[in-house]
C-alpha cells in the first residue's frame, strides 16, 4: 500500500472518529442494536450469571432438549483409567479428566496460578491449557493425499498434542506425568498510549521438561529444533452449531472482499474432514471453521477429536489411542483395554450438546456509550474481520436453520503479527495466522470464569489487553484504537462487554 494512501486513510478514519464521538447520527446499523445474537435460539436472561453459557438453544423442541440434556451430563462426566470401571476410557495420556474440566461452565479457560514472584510453575491436574506440537514444515500450497492434505506433521514418538498428564503406571520414572511435564511463567511488558496511559501486558512462556524419551539432558525428540509448539487455551462452547450452519459461500465471499486499504486479506483454511474420511471421500477436505487456526471443519470433528485427544477416550470417529505407536504406549499396553471406549450414543450426545448450546442475549443495547462503542468498533475497522452478521442456511438440526445471528467473525485466517505468532503452521494457516474469534457472549466471560484469559493462550486478562496484542493485518485498527481518547476507548470496550 502506498505510504501516502496509508496516511490519508488514517486521517479519514480519525476525522470520522471525532465526528462519531460528537453525535451518534442516524447511521446506527441493525447489528449495533441487535440483542438476540443467536436468533430464536438466544438464551435470554435478565441477569446473566455464572451459568449463562450452560443453556440449550431456546428454540429447541422437547425431543431435542432431552438429547441436549443427555449430552450435558456426559460433558460433565469424569472418565476413568481404572480398567475395572464401566466409565473406563481415560488416558493413558490426557490433559483433563472431563470436558467440563477445561471448558469450565462452557466458558473460556484460565491460565494456572503462578505465584507473584513469577517462578516456573508446573501445569497440573486443573490446567485448562495444553500445547499443540508438530514438525516444522513449509505451507503446502497444493494439498494432496501425498502431503496428507497439508496437515501438520506429528512429532515422532509424541504426535500432535503434548499430554502433560498420564495414568500412574505409564511412566515409572515420573508417575502421573504424560509425555512430558509442561512448565509456565510470564513475560511482562508495558504498552503506553499516546495519552501516556500505561497498560501491563503479560505473555505465558512454556518449557517442556522431563520428556519420557529423554536419556541424557536435551536428547528428547520433543526438544529438537524442528519441533514447533503452540499453546491452546480452552475456548467457549456457545453457538457452535450456528457457526456450522453458516453457508460456506458466505464465508468464502468474505475472503473475496478487497480490504487491501486496511492491509487485510483473510483466507479460508481447508482441512481434513473426518466425516468425509469415514465416507471414503477421495478428497476429504472441508472449510475449516473451528479451532483457533480454523483447523477443524465441524462440531463432530472438533468434539470427538477432543474427546480422543484431550482425554484419551477413543470413539467411532477417532478409534486409535492418541499415543498409539509410541514406545511409551507399547510398554503400557498390558495395563490397557482395547476397544472403543465411548459408545456411539455417548459420542453422538456430546456432539449434539456441543451443537446446541445457546448464546446469551446482549445487555444495554440502548445505552448511549455502548452505541457509541459500536460505531467506533466499525470506524476503527474491527468489523473488517469481526464480521457482525449472517443468516444461517440449512442444518440437520432444524432449530439451527434460517436464523439471523451475530457472531462477529469472518471465520477466516489473518496474519496477526509477530506478537501473537506461534510459529506453527496448521493446514493453510501459517505460524502468524489465527482465525478471527467469534465475539458473541464475550462480555460475560469474566462472569462465568473470573480468571478467564483471552486470546489463544489466555494471556490477555482484559479485553483492552486483547486489543493491544492485535498486530499484522489488524495493526491499523489497533493503532486507530490507541489514538482514541480514553472515553472513546471505554465506549468501545463497553460495546464489547454488551455482547
Amino acid at each position, binding site marked *: 500500500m502506498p505510504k501516502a494512501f496509508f496516511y490519508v486513510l488514517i486521517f479519514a478514519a480519525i476525522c470520522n472518529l471525532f465526528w462519531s464521538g460528537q453525535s451518534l447520527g442516524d447511521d446506527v446499523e441493525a447489528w449495533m442494536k441487535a440483542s438476540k445474537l443467536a436468533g430464536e435460539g438466544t438464551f435470554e436472561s435478565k441477569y446473566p450469571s*455464572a451459568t449463562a453459557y450452560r443453556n440449550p438453544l431456546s428454540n429447541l423442541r422437547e425431543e431435542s432438549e432431552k438429547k441436549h440434556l443427555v449430552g450435558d*451430563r456426559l460433558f460433565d462426566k469424569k472418565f476413568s483409567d481404572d480398567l475395572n470401571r*464401566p466409565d473406563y476410557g481415560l488416558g493413558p495420556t490426557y490433559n483433563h*479428566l472431563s470436558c467440563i474440566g477445561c471448558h469450565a461452565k462452557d466458558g473460556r479457560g484460565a491460565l494456572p496460578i503462578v*505465584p507473584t514472584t513469577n517462578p516456573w510453575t508446573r501445569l497440573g*491436574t*486443573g490446567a*485448562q491449557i495444553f500445547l499443540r506440537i508438530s514438525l516444522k514444515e513449509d505451507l503446502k500450497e497444493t494439498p494432496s493425499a501425498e502431503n496428507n492434505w497439508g496437515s501438520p506433521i506429528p512429532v515422532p514418538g509424541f504426535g500432535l498434542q503434548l499430554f502433560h498428564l498420564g495414568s500412574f503406571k505409564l511412566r515409572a520414572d515420573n508417575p*502421573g506425568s504424560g509425555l512430558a511435564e509442561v512448565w509456565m511463567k510470564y513475560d511482562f511488558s508495558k504498552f503506553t498510549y499516546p495519552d501516556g496511559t500505561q497498560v501491563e501486558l503479560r505473555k505465558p512462556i512454556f518449557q517442556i521438561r522431563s520428556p519420557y524419551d529423554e536419556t541424557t539432558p536435551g536428547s528428547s525428540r520433543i526438544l529438537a529444533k524442528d519441533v514447533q509448539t503452540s499453546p491452546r487455551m480452552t475456548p467457549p462452547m456457545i453457538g457452535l452449531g450456528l457457526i456450522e450452519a453458516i453457508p460456506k459461500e458466505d464465508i468464502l465471499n468474505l475472503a473475496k472482499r478487497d480490504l487491501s486499504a486496511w492491509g487485510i486479506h483473510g483466507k479460508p483454511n481447508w482441512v481434513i474432514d473426518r466425516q468425509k474420511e469415514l465416507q471414503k471421500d477421495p478428497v476429504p477436505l472441508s472449510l475449516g471453521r473451528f479451532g483457533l487456526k480454523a483447523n477443524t471443519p465441524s462440531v463432530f470433528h472438533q468434539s470427538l477429536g477432543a474427546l480422543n485427544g484431550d482425554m484419551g477416550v477413543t470413539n467411532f470417529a477417532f478409534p486409535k489411542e492418541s499415543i498409539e505407536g509410541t514406545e511409551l504406549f507399547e510398554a503400557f499396553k498390558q495395563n490397557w483395554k482395547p476397544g472403543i471406549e465411548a459408545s456411539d450414543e455417548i459420542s453422538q450426545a456430546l456432539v449434539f450438546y456441543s451443537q446446541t448450546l445457546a448464546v446469551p442475549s446482549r445487555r444495554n443495547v440502548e445505552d448511549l456509550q455502548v452505541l457509541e462503542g459500536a460505531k467506533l468498533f466499525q470506524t476503527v475497522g474491527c468489523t473488517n474481520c469481526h464480521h457482525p452478521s449472517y443468516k444461517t442456511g440449512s442444518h440437520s438440526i432444524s432449530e439451527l436453520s434460517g436464523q439471523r445471528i451475530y457472531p462477529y467473525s469472518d471465520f477466516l485466517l489473518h496474519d496477526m503479527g509477530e506478537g501473537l505468532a506461534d510459529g506453527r503452521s496448521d493446514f493453510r494457516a501459517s505460524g502468524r495466522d489465527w482465525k478471527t474469534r467469534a465475539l458473541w457472549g464475550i462480555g460475560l466471560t469474566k462472569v462465568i470464569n473470573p*480468571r478467564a484469559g483471552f486470546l489463544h493462550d489466555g494471556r490477555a486478562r482484559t479485553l483492552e489487553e486483547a486489543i493491544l496484542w492485535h498486530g499484522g493485518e489488524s495493526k491499523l485498527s489497533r493503532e486507530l484504537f490507541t489514538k482514541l481518547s480514553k472515553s472513546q476507548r471505554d465506549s468501545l470496550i463497553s460495546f464489547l462487554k454488551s455482547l
Partner: protein
Amino acid sequence: MKFLWIAALLVGLNSHAVTPEEIVDHIARKVIVQDYVDLASRAADLHASILTLKSSPTQENMLKAQQAWRDCRQPWETSEAFLYGPVSSLGLDPSIDTWPLNKIDLQAVLASNRTLDLDFVRNLGANLQGFHTVEYLLFGEGTSAQKKVASELTSKELEYLDSTSALLVEKTGQLAHAWTTNADPDNPSLPGFVEIISRPGPNNPFYPTTQAVLSEYVKGIIGILDEVANGKIAGPMGSTIGSADPSLVESPFSWNSVADFSNNVRSALYVYSGDYRATPGPGIIDVVRDTDPELAKNTERALRRIIFEMSRIGGDVEIPFREAIVQPEPRKKIEHIIQLLNELSATFTNKILPIVEG
C-alpha cells in the same frame, strides 16, 4: 420497665424490613464464606485425626478419623449450591473431589516403594487425590460384609492418608482464602470474592446490580437441585432396575451417599432461608415472601421434605444408596425424590427467579 423497653426494641428490630442488599450481604458472608471457612477448618481437623491415627493406629482413632472425614465432607457438599467464583476459577474442584477414584492405580501406588509425600501425591492424577481417596483408605470397600478396621491399615496407607489429607487442607485453605482475602492470586490487589459478590454496582466487574447477585444465588440453587436429581441420583439409578449401576454412586465406601445428597439440598436450603447452622437468615425466602408469602413458605417446606424423604429411603433400615438402587421398594422412594427435586427446580425457575430478578 427495662424489660418492656427491650421487648419494644426487639419488636422494632423484627419489624425492620430486610433489604435485598442485606440479603445479598448476609448470604455471602454468613452462609457461603462461613461454609468455606468450616470446610477448611474441618479439613485441618481431618488431617490432625489422621496424624493421630498414623502415630497410634487404634480402632478408636480409626473411628475418629472416619467421623472426621464425614464431618469434613459435610461443608463440601453444602457448598454445592454456590459453585460460582473461586472454586471454579481456581480449578480446585478436581483435586478436592474427583469421582471415580482409580482403585487399581491406588493399589499400585501403595505397592510401590516410593515415598508418598505431599509433592508426590500432588503430581498424581486427580483420581488419586481428594475426598474419595481418603474415603477409600479409611473405610475400605465399605460393603455390609466388609467394614475396615484399624488393624487392616498398612503403614503405606497411613503415609498416603497423611499426604492426601494434607493436600486437601491446602486446597480447601486456598478456597477459603480466595473468598475471604484475595479472589485471584494473579492479582494481589483484588479483595476476597465475598467483597465482589456482596457489593454489586455499575463498577463491579461481574455483578452490576443487587438483583444480579440474587439471580446468581437462585440459579445456584436450581443447578444443584437439577444435578442431584438428574445426575447424582438418576445416573446410577438407570431407567430400570436392570440398568442401575452401583459403581457410579459417589461416596459408596463410607455409606455417605445419601448424606451427600441431603447436604446438597441443605446447601440450597441455606441459601434460600439464609439460615446457616445457628445463624438465622435473611435469605431468598425474604424476597419471595414480600410477593408471595405462600410460595415462600411452601418452598422451604418442600426443601425440608426432600431432606426428610432422603432419610427414609431404606425405611427403618440403613442401607447404602448403592444397594438401595437395586431394590424395588427403595427405588420407588428414590424415584419419588427425583420427582420432588424436579418439581422444586421448576418452581425456582418459573416462579422464584422472576420474583428475585424483579
